[in-house]
């Protein structure tokens, strides 16, 4: 996993197996975001997104992992969060990204909400193989000069 | 002053000598009739309802200056002086609210007034006069118009920067009441800053009511409208009620079109009404002080 494009630093891997791990993942995420110099508001947005992603893993796949890393692109710096599971996969990804859609008892805000909290959002899901959601958030005003 | 090298770019190279000579003759005619033509031009400007933001005296003064610069440019083929003048003129008149079409309009009018006079004077040489006069006149018109537009764009850029830098003030008016006057275009970035600032302001001032006045917001698209709704919702989570005032008919229409739940929005027509509503929510009543006779 360390050879993934754009990752420049060691990454933090948080295994997700129970709801307690959701708390760990978001605390790690906030710590890394603060380390990267994100404002406290931005760190909160990132931690909230991580919480939702980790919760999806617990809800739908039972187990998986959250990978946190620093990302650099043309002088921009940011944080990349990868939520990976080997669960059942999402049948209709498009639908899962629509507001108000849920397959697990009224939560359903997860993915569209996460998308709004972060700058970049990518999802790859294969039925029976699992789901990987990759989200990034770039530091404000840290764009190429 | 007539330098053929600078003239070459202005007029057709064919029959250069005679054209230059003719142009000089034309300029002499226009200079002789300066008073009359200048008045004619000023009259046409007034008739066409151009430069209405300026007084007749101001129009006449500018007309004189433009006229003289115009003739000089015609004569020398050098538009530098005119360029400088056009820039100065733009700087002076843009703040007065003079529009691009007015500036283009007056220059085209001058071109027309002068051309008519020249055609009257040289009825037999119509096409030669045209050849000599028109390219130069067009270039001058172009210079003035471009100068004006560039100046306008510069001012617009400057204003955009100023607006971006302008922090939206969160004003504590009285105990637990904040006023947030928003002026200018809101983009998502600004909407976000504004919300963060407001939420912090609510916490620091322990505000119960916020009057958000958007009279100065010219337009709003769906994204920004949604940001605004989020601002209202986030404020509620901190225990503060937001009253939105100064919604223009256009923005009201946008909100309805995108299906914003107006039930969530507490809206009052204007800022004054908003403050009155805030006082009502806070349980205050404003009564006039009865002056006791001394």
């Amino acid at each position: 996993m360390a050879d993934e494009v754009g990752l420049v630093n060691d990454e933090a891997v948080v295994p997700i197996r129970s709801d307690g791990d959701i708390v760990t993942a978001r605390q790690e995420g906030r710590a890394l975001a603060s380390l990267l110099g994100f404002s406290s508001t931005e760190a909160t947005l990132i931690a909230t997104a991580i919480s939702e992603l980790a919760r999806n893993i617990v809800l739908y796949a039972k187990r998986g992992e959250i990978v946190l890393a620093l990302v650099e692109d043309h002088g921009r710096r940011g944080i990349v969060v990868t939520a990976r599971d080997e669960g059942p996969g999402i049948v209709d990804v498009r639908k899962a990204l629509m507001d108000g859609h849920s397959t697990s008892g009224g939560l359903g805000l997860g993915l569209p909400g996460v998308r709004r909290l972060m700058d970049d959002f990518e999802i790859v899901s294969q039925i029976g193989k699992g789901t990987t959601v990759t989200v990034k958030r770039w530091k404000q005003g840290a764009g190429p000069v | 002053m007539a330098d053929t090298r600078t003239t070459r770019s202005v007029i057709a190279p064919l029959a250069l000598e005679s054209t230059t000579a003719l142009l000089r003759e034309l300029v002499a005619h226009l200079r002789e009739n300066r008073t009359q033509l200048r008045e004619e031009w000023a009259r046409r400007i007034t008739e066409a309802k151009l430069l209405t933001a300026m007084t007749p005296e101001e129009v006449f003064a500018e007309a004189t200056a433009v006229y003289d610069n115009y003739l000089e440019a015609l004569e020398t083929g050098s538009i530098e002086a005119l360029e400088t003048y056009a820039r100065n003129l733009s700087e002076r008149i843009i703040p007065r609210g003079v529009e691009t079409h007015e500036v283009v309009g007056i220059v085209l009018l001058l071109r027309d007034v002068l051309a008519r006079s020249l055609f009257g004077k040289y009825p037999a040489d119509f096409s030669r006069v045209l050849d000599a006069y028109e390219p130069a006149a067009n270039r001058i018109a172009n210079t003035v118009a471009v100068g004006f537009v560039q100046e306008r764009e510069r001012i617009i850029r400057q204003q955009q920067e100023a607006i971006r830098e302008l922090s939206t003030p969160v004003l504590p008016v009285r105990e637990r009441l904040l006023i947030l006057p928003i002026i200018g275009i809101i983009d998502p970035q600004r909407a976000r800053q504004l919300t963060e600032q407001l939420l912090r302001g609510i916490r620091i001032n322990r505000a119960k009511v916020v009057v958000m006045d958007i009279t100065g917001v010219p337009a709003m698209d769906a994204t920004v409208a949604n940001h605004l709704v989020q601002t209202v919702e986030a404020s509620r989570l901190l225990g503060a009620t937001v009253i939105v005032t100064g919604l223009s008919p256009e923005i009201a229409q946008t909100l309805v079109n995108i299906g914003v739940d107006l039930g969530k929005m507490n809206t009052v027509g204007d800022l004054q009404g908003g403050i009155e509503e805030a006082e009502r929510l806070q349980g205050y009543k404003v009564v006039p002080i009865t002056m006791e006779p001394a």
Partner: protein
Amino acid sequence: MPVPILKQRDYLIATIQAALTDDDLKKLRDALVAQVGEFRSRGVIVDVTTLDVMDSFAARTLRDLSHMSRLRGAETVIVGIQPEVAFAMVQLGLTLEGVPAALDLEEGLAYLDRKTKRKTAAK
């Protein structure tokens, strides 16, 4: 880690003191709903000042708590939501609709006093 519940006058006050797991939150909800009946409480205050993330699960649990305790005769008010947390919540689409919110404990108490007095007067 269980959340201590304080009983004061007609009110129950739960002050969240650490990051809560989903399980902790559910336990808190159930405990509050049970105690509302036990102590015949008129109001519930959940102080989330130290909560640094409110995600969809937390928001839903608090909303459920509010609805459940209302059915059992107590008004619930959430106090102390931090500005950043509120900002993240609305971006996520969590508005806690129908759940009263107040700035802090003091405001929450004032809110409940107003609310329960009005009810008494109406009866």
